[in-house]
């Protein structure tokens, strides 16, 4: 059929096209016949589906592992993270649930070995090579800052933030914008009034035991913004705590952070009691009161009351109060 078509083109006089067409048709014809002979002789079971355009199957030959020298550069076989190739790894690895009465399946055609992430590209030699290349970009830690105490002295502000790496629909993690700022109040330049005002302003963000003020900012969408907001808060707190307002003069005893014994009802009571007991010698009242205050037992009583009020009522403080009262009243 094809040959007849070629002859027809010849008769029309388009010699070039017809020559090409003739050659192609002849090639196709010869190829097809050669193939059809092979396919009919060999793979009858395949139903002849692969008969058109199918190359003869070659034997796989020896796997690459047989040709690998022992002292080869492994980094060139597995330079980066690649799935496991059984013919490129010269190790007799077996993986999977053992066959009944036998061992785990071998590595050839083993899907379990392909599924698990492998570290063949990160052998110790490869890691050393990578680190040698990365060394020029690293800087050294300053040798003067050996201990944490020195670090705290020179760099008191600590900024803590988190980064997250995971696979998912999105690379971003909204928790990465949170910034924690931690400072020790002893490292800031504050006087007594400023310190008390700062503690009142800050409230729960201050930890008494460790003397650390921690500010957590997460209101802004970016970490840079949260960091700048935290620094702004610290600046504002510092400057506001140094300010003395007019209404701060109206601070009452109930606003005080710590209990102070001077001019308190407890002091008046103990002095009145002692005067009535007529412990001290006769004299003017003011002098007598001063003498009483200067006594050791009264000082002990003062310490025990202050401790009770500040720390609360635990066993030790109650015992101390009891001893002090006994000494003062000579019981």
């Amino acid at each position, binding site marked *: 059929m094809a040959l007849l078509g070629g002859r027809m083109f010849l008769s029309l006089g388009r010699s070039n096209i017809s020559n090409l067409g003739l050659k192609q048709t002849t090639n196709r014809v010869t190829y097809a016949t050669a193939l059809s002979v092979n396919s009919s002789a060999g793979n009858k079971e395949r139903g002849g589906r692969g008969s058109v355009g199918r190359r003869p199957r070659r034997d796989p030959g020896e796997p690459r592992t047989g040709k690998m020298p022992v002292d080869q550069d492994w980094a060139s076989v597995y330079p980066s*993270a690649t799935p496991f190739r059984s013919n490129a790894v010269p190790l007799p690895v077996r993986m999977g649930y053992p066959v009944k009465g036998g061992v785990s399946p071998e590595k050839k055609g083993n899907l379990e070995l392909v599924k*698990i*992430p492998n*570290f063949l*590209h*990160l052998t*110790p030699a490869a*890691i*050393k090579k*990578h*680190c*040698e290349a*990365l*060394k*020029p*970009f*690293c*800087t*050294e*830690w*300053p040798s003067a*800052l050996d201990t*944490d105490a020195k*670090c705290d002295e*020179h*760099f*008191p*502000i*600590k*900024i*803590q*933030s*988190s*980064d*997250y*790496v*995971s*696979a998912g629909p999105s690379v971003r993690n909204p928790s990465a914008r949170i910034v924690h700022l931690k400072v020790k109040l002893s*490292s*800031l*330049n504050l006087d007594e009034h*400023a310190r008390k005002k700062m503690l009142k302003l800050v409230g729960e963000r201050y930890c008494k035991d460790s003397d650390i003020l921690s500010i957590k900012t997460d209101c802004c969408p970016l970490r840079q913004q949260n960091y700048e907001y935290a*620094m702004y808060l*610290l*600046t504002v707190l*510092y*400057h506001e705590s*140094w*300010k003395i*307002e*007019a*209404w701060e003069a109206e601070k009452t005893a109930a606003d005080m952070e710590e209990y102070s014994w001077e001019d308190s009802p407890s002091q008046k009571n103990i002095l009145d009691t002692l005067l009535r007991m007529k412990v001290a010698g006769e004299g003017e009242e003011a002098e007598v009161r001063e003498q009483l205050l200067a006594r050791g037992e009264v000082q002990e009583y003062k310490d025990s009351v202050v401790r009770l009020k500040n720390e609360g009522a635990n066993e030790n403080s109650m015992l101390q109060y009891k001893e002090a009262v006994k000494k003062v009243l000579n019981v």
Partner: protein
Amino acid sequence: PLARCCCCCCCCRFLPTDEPDTLFQKVVVLVKGHDRAVLDSYEFFATMAAKELGITMAKVFEPPKDIERLTLLKSVHIYKKHRVQYEMRTHYRCIELHHITGCTAQVYLEYIQRNLPEGVAMEVTKTAMEKIPDHILEPMWKDHPIDDKPSK
């Protein structure tokens, strides 16, 4: 510290800058995965890389694993008494690095994260140290005394 230079020539891409390097007092790398063996290998890789780059490692430990279990109905329709139970195990590994500079931290973390195996997640918590900024050293009311306006 080095910074990329804007010129397109391939010979020198990094030039030293005068920008002060950040100092990290602590960098905590927490790796999470479903397979303990993978995390073991990753830990070996990370510790070796830290040793080669000269980074001090404070602690390398394994927090206890989390198991999330759920009980579902085995069948699509009815058969309430027949259920099937699944569990998801998350194993952790924690590596704490102390006293590391910003440049070294960037290099190490980028190296670690590029070689993070599939199916493993990482959380890095950095604690940077800073000096007290100049505007907090002295209160500003000393130079500029407050006016007598009542504050609200």
